[in-house]
């Protein structure tokens, strides 16, 4: 099946794993099927695109790609609900809010989206913890990652 999306044009679902969110996402309770898109120009952001509403796509990041000390505690009941048997099947995403002033973009660390990549089931949970701010500035970290990647490649080349 091919779907039409507002931002990314036509997407063939045959190549994509559809993630089911049984309760939807907070604010989009009626939308329970999304796909994860990797778009070259917006890397390292990913997009959680609704397959039911062409206009709904949330930019997300994988927190572990930016933060060495990102730590969340997922409860047994939540792991059971998602039927996570192997920790390697767990994908954690944070929704990114991008204001007009792009430098001020933030990630919502307090509400991680947890996904079982094997079964394709997900849920957004709320964790009330001081170390997980709801608006965590992430622009500098993204820049650092982008620049870091380039610097590493350069130094390897010099050594060779």
């Amino acid at each position, binding site marked *: 099946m091919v779907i039409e999306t507002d931002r990314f044009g036509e997407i063939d679902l045959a190549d994509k794993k559809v993630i089911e969110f049984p309760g939807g996402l907070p604010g989009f309770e009626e939308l329970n099927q999304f796909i994860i898109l990797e778009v070259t120009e917006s890397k390292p952001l990913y997009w959680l695109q609704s397959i039911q509403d062409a206009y709904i796509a949330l930019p997300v990041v994988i927190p572990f790609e930016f933060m060495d000390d990102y730590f969340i505690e997922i409860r047994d009941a939540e792991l059971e609900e998602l039927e996570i048997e192997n920790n390697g099947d767990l994908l954690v995403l944070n929704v*990114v809010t991008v204001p007009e002033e792009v430098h001020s973009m933030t990630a919502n660390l307090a509400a991680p989206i947890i996904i079982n990549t094997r079964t394709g089931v997900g849920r957004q949970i709320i964790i009330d913890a001081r170390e997980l701010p709801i608006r965590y500035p992430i622009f500098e970290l993204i820049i650092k990652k982008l620049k870091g990647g380039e610097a590493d490649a350069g130094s390897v080349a010099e050594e060779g």
Partner: protein
Amino acid sequence: MLVLSRKKGETLAIGENISIEILGVEGDRVRIGIEAPREVRIFRKELLDETIHMNKAAATHIPVLDFQKELESGGE
């Protein structure tokens, strides 16, 4: 909605496994102690409200964009 008043030191039970104790009242601030099973997540309601708001803002306010270019130019 159920509305009731409790005094400092008194407790409310919600079902059999959750209890909420009023620990103290100072001005407009109430300190509450909650006992609940570990599988029950307890969080300030405004975190959910803000997450709803932020999800909506994240999903609908962003046009097609070239972050790569934006980030590279912005980082210099």
